[in-house]
C-alpha cells in the first residue's frame, strides 16, 4: 500500500502552518484564506489516503495504531476548520497545524504504515461508533489547544509582556467561546457514539459491558467535560481556571486513548 497521499497531505499541512504562522506576525487577510484553503486541501488529500486504507481493511482505520491516529488527526483538522469558519478566526491555526504536523509526522516516524492487516468484520454500526468517539476525542484535543492558548494569552496580559504575536492572538473571550464550542461538539459526538457501541456489544454478546474500563473512563470524560461547561460559567471558575480545567480534562482523554486501549480494556484493545 503506497502512502504518497499521506506524505503529500503532510506537506500541505506544513504549507498551511507556514501561512498561519506568518499571519501571527504580519496581518494579511488573503494569507489567512490561503492558509485555510491549504488546510482544506490537506484534509481532502488525507481523506483519500484514509479511504485507500479503508478499502484495504474494509472498515474505518481503527484497528492499527497508524490508521487510528491518522483518522484522529484528520478529524482534528476538520473540527478546527469548522470552528475557524464559524468563529472567523485564523490566529489559532498556527498552533493547531503545528500539532497536526507533529502528530502525523511523528506517527510516520514511529509507526511503519505498511504493517496493516484487515481486522475481523464488525459491521457499519461499529465503524460509526469508532468514528464518532474518535471525532469526539479530536474535538476535545482541539479544546485542549485552545485552552492552552487562552492560558498563555491570559498570562501575557497579566504579566504585561506584550510581544508582537500577542496583538495577533484572538481575544480571551473568543478563545473561550471556541473552546466551549469544541467541547460541546465533543460531548455530542461521544454521547452519540457510546450508545452505538453499547448496542453493537449487546447484539454480539447479549449484554452490556458496563464494567469495561474503556466504558468507565469514557463516562468519566463525559462527566468532567460537562463539569467544565458548567464551571466555566460560574463566578469562581470563569476564565483561566476553566481553561486550566479544560486542558487537564484532556489528560483523561489521552489516558483513555492510549493506556486504557493498550493495557486495561478487553473489548477496545485494537493495536
Amino acid at each position: 500500500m503506497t502512502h504518497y497521499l499521506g506524505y503529500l497531505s503532510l506537506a500541505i499541512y506544513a504549507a498551511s502552518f507556514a501561512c498561519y504562522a506568518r499571519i501571527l506576525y504580519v496581518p494579511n487577510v488573503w494569507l489567512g484564506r490561503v492558509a485555510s484553503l491549504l488546510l482544506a486541501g490537506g484534509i481532502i488529500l488525507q481523506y483519500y489516503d484514509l479511504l485507500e486504507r479503508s478499502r484495504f481493511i474494509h472498515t474505518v482505520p481503527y484497528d492499527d495504531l497508524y490508521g487510528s491516529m491518522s483518522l484522529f488527526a484528520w478529524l482534528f483538522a476538520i473540527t478546527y476548520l469548522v470552528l475557524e469558519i464559524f468563529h472567523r478566526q485564523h490566529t489559532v491555526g498556527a498552533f493547531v497545524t503545528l500539532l497536526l504536523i507533529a502528530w502525523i509526522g511523528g506517527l510516520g516516524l514511529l509507526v511503519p504504515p505498511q504493517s496493516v492487516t484487515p481486522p475481523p468484520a464488525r459491521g457499519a454500526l461499529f465503524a460509526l461508533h469508532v468514528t464518532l468517539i474518535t471525532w469526539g476525542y479530536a474535538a476535545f484535543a482541539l479544546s485542549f489547544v485552545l485552552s492552552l492558548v487562552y492560558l498563555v494569552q491570559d498570562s501575557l496580559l497579566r504579566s504585561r509582556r506584550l510581544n508582537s504575536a500577542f496583538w495577533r492572538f484572538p481575544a480571551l473571550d473568543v478563545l473561550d467561546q471556541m473552546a466551549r464550542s469544541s467541547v460541546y461538539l465533543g460531548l455530542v459526538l461521544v454521547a452519540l457514539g457510546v450508545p452505538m457501541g453499547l448496542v453493537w456489544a449487546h447484539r454480539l454478546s447479549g449484554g452490556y459491558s458496563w464494567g469495561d474500563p474503556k466504558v468507565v473512563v469514557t463516562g468519566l470524560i463525559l462527566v468532567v467535560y460537562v463539569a467544565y461547561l458548567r464551571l466555566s460559567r460560574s463566578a469562581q471558575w470563569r476564565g483561566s481556571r476553566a481553561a486550566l480545567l479544560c486542558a487537564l480534562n484532556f489528560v483523561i482523554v489521552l489516558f483513555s486513548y492510549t493506556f486504557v486501549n493498550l493495557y486495561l480494556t478487553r473489548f477496545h484493545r485494537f493495536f
Partner: protein
Amino acid sequence: MTTATANPLRNTSSRIQLALIGCNHRTASVELRERVAFTQKQALDAADELRRQGILEEAVVLSTCNRSELYGVAGEGGSALTEAMEEFFTSFHGLARAELAGKFYRWSGRDAIYHLYRVAAGLDSMMLGEAEILGQLRTAYGQALDHGATGPVLNRVFQGALEVGKRVRSETEVGARPMSVALAGVKLAERVFGNLKGRAALIIGAGAVAEQVVEQLRHRAIGTLQVVNRSYDRAADLAERVGGCAAPWESLETQMNQPDIIVTSTGGTGPVLTRKMLERAITARGGRPVFVVDLGVPRNVESAASGIYSLYLYNIDDLGEIVEQNKKAREAEVPRAEAIISEHIAKFETWRATLEAGSIVDDLRGRFHQQRQLLLEEKDKEMPELSPEERHRMARITEELIERVLYEPAERLRNGRGMRGRLGAVEALRHIFGLDEGK
C-alpha cells in the same frame, strides 16, 4: 512594418518632469501650515490654474493638518519647475517668498516619488505609521482624478503610493500597535473581550485623556457609556458630547456592576476604587471579567485590586510602557517599509524608463525623416534626369530604410526589460542626436 511604440505620454511630453514642493509638521510651524492649507475647492482651483498657466500638465494638491504639498508634472521646465511651482504657491496664498525660506522642501523626479511613498506609508507622519494619511491621500488623488487634473504620470505615481500604503500596513508592523495611551487601553480591552460592540463602559472623571478613551470606545460602537464625575455638571457635559449617560458621584458603586470596561482618571489623594468595591462589582456580574484602565495620578485604583481574579488592571505607567515598546517595535519595522517603497520606486522607474526610451524612437524617427526630406530635395536638384517614378521609388526606399533601422530598437523598448538601468544611455543618445534642441 509597424514601428510605433505605444506611448501614454504622447499627448503630454516625451520626458517626465515630476516635482513636489510643500511643507509639513517638521519644516513649518502650525501658523504657517494654516496659512498654506488648501480647502478641497482651493486644491482643485489651484490645479486648474497651474495647468491653465502652463506651469504643469498634471497636478495634485495634498493638504492635511500636518502638510500642504503640491505634486506636479510638467512638459518642460527642468530645474526651473520647482521655482515656478513655488512662485505659484506663494502667490496663491498671498505670501512673500521670504516667508517660506527654509520652511519648504522641493523634490523632483525619484526624490519626489520617494517622499510621496513615505507619506503614504505613514513614515513621514507625526505619529509613525498612522493610518489616516492614507485615506487623506486617497481622497486628494480621487478628487484630482475626477476633476481631470491628473494624467498618466501622476495616476501611476499616486496609484503606486496607495499600493505602498496598503502593503506597508498589511505586511509590516509599522501601523499595527497602539501608539497612544488611550488607544493602548482600548486595544488591550479588545484582547480580553474581542469585539467591543454592545459592551458597557463606565468613565470615572471627565478629563482630557478619559475623553480620548471614550472617543476610541465610540469608534468601536460601545453599547452603554456611563459617565461619573465629582462634578455632575462636567459628567453631564461629557456624557452629552459623547452620547452617554451621566450619573451622580454617590451612585458610583452601583454603577460598577454593569460595565465590562472601567476607565478612571479623576484627581484626589486616595484611591477611588478599592479592592473590596471591585470584588463586589465582579461578584454582582457573576464573575464576568472587568477591564480597568487607571489613568489617574495618583492612581485611582487600590494597588491590591490587581490580584483580583477576573480583573485586568492597567495603570498609566503600564500603558505608557506599552506605548514606548510599541514605538520601538514600529521603528524597528521601518526598514521593511522602506524595502516595500524601494520595490515600488523600482517599478515606477522601469515604467518611466520604458516610456522615456519609447519617446526617443519617435524623436529619432522625426529627426531621420527631416534629414531624409532634406537629402531627397538635394538629390532632386543634383539628379534632374530621374523620372517621377524613380524619385518615388527612392523616397520609398529611404523611408523603408529608416523604419528598418528603428524597428529593432522599438521592439526592444516594447518589451521594456532592463530599461531602468539604461536611462543614462538614453540620455546620451538624446544628446548625440540633439533631440532636445529646439524644444
